[in-house]
């Protein structure tokens, strides 16, 4: 079990109000990702759930029980930190065993769980090493091992992959996703990387300045962003937001069109522009185009074989059914 419910939760540091009243329900077994730019309060929110910070007002329920004033260890949650936060003076085995030792578990059961976790995480050969003798990826595995042996009702991840290099990050992302499918335990994952959010989440919570901008599945957020902030944040490269006369033709303040929903031609189209930079990735080409009124540069995603370079004139045609419309208040208009 691992249902977590936040009711009217607020957090202030002194006079600074970091989280205004916030309601959120995370269902049992769900993989929920908190995403937002740095300073949006996503890590604070995670720490409030963990119990590492006290909430200023409101209530936190875990599995229907009031956990607002419970110390971290009594909440039945396990956390994986960005810095791994391994105990440097203990071997890998002792690191993983630490929560079990604190819980007063008998030795035989400890051994069994450590062996199982080490096997699942490919750490069996490293159990006697110290964290300082491991690579970043291995350290992160130890941190995960320390979390899973406790069999918590929910896992909390605080930007766990941001210290790893790009290749390792993709691998660990898959491992964590597979772990979730296998364990079917609630996971809350904080990241500023919208690609991680899109690929891993059952449910994404987009935050800005402590306020929840939108909650939904990755595709819901992609297809129907509730406002300009979510529209710009979800999707890569980000959505082009166009103001002015082109938007006025659609009767709204702002229109949004994703790079992948814009057709490019060197001969004809609706809008005319000049190529600034063309990024050839092999499979795709991201073209940054100048000269479109209300949006400079405008980014489009074309096929890998398109042959354009700096200074070329191109014509763009947005796919009508994929145009997002936003009012002057930034909210979506249907």
């Amino acid at each position, binding site marked *: 079990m691992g249902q977590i419910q936040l009711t009217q939760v607020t957090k202030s540091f002194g006079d600074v109000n970091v989280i205004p009243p916030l309601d959120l329900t995370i269902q049992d077994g769900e993989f929920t990702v908190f995403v937002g730019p740095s300073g949006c309060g996503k890590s604070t929110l995670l720490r409030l759930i963990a119990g590492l910070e006290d909430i200023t007002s409101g209530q936190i329920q875990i599995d229907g029980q009031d956990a607002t004033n419970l110390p971290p260890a009594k909440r039945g949650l396990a956390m994986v930190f960005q810095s791994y*936060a391994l105990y440097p003076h203990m071997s890998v085995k002792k690191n993983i065993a630490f*929560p079990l030792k604190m819980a007063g578990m008998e030795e035989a059961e400890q051994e069994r769980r450590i062996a199982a976790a080490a096997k699942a995480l490919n750490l069996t050969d490293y159990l006697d090493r110290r964290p300082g003798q491991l690579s970043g990826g291995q350290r992160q595995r130890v941190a995960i091992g320390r979390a899973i042996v406790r069999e918590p009702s929910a896992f909390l991840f605080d930007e766990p992959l941001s210290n790893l290099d790009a290749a390792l990050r993709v691998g660990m992302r898959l491992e964590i996703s597979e772990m979730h499918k296998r364990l079917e335990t609630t996971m809350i994952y904080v990241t500023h990387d919208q690609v991680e959010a899109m690929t891993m989440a059952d449910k994404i919570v987009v935050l800005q300045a402590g306020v929840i901008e939108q909650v939904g599945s990755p595709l819901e957020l992609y297809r129907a962003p509730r406002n300009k902030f979510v529209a710009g944040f979800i999707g890569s490269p980000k959505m082009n937001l166009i103001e002015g006369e082109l938007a006025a033709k659609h009767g709204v303040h702002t229109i949004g069109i994703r790079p992948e929903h814009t057709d490019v031609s060197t001969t004809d189209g609706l809008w005319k522009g000049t190529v600034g930079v063309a990024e050839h990735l092999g499979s795709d080409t991201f073209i940054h185009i100048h000269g479109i009124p209300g949006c400079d540069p405008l980014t489009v995603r074309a096929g890998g074989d398109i042959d354009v370079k700096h200074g070329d004139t191109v014509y763009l045609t947005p796919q009508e059914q994929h145009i997002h419309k936003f009012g002057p208040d930034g909210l979506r208009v249907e």
Partner: protein
Amino acid sequence: MARAVTNQRKAINTAAAWIVGLLIFFPILWTILTSFKTEAVAIADPPVFLGFDWTLENYRTVLERSNYARFLWNSIIIAGGSTVLGIIVAVPAAWSMAFVPSNRTKDILLWMLSTKMLPAVGVLYPIYLIFINLGLLDSRLGLVVVLMLINLPIIVWMLYTYFKEIPVDILEAGRMDGASLKDEIIYILTPMAIPGIASTLLLNFILAWNEAFWTLNLTAAKAAPLTAFIASYSSPEGLFYAKLSAASTMAIAPILILGWFSQKQLVSGLTFGAVK
């Protein structure tokens, strides 16, 4: 551009370091040399540096006249006891200031340090009276407590500096893993701070060993440590320089040897946090 370190510059630096080192060491060297002279040679004018008949007579006399072992034992008990007691009091204090700081933490730290600027003699009278009332005069327990209090600001400061270097994440991970405050201090904080705690122990043991004001004023015979042992050979009349030097050499020898073998630890402790 990196500053060029020429050989000439290196030689000058080395020479300067040697000169400063010898200047600091000279009084100790002179004391040790004098301890092997006869009383007559010790006051000879001009002074004799090395060319004299070496004698162990002073050491023999000093050992006959005084119970060196008792003074030594008192020094060990007082310096060791006050240091261990100080650590026990300072660890929780430094923990709270390093990990749950309040707006006043810096002020408290500075206030603690400011007590070190007070001339000790300023509080001699009240402390002497308290000692009389509590029956602590000339007791090892009394000195352990006083020296612990005298050195506490330094112990707290040093530990605070070490604890500040420990990432809070690791302590929070401990809390998530179910460690109580006691578990956190025993299993996580202390093992990680062992190098720092060791050099704090060492430095404060040395400071307590060398402390003379309180040990001389609050003891008579029973609890007197090596500082009193030295003082007993200082006399306005008679020829006592060589014997005084022998006593001094015997008093500083244990701590010199300890310092010699632990100098690596001491240096790393004193520069901790200053260089990465």
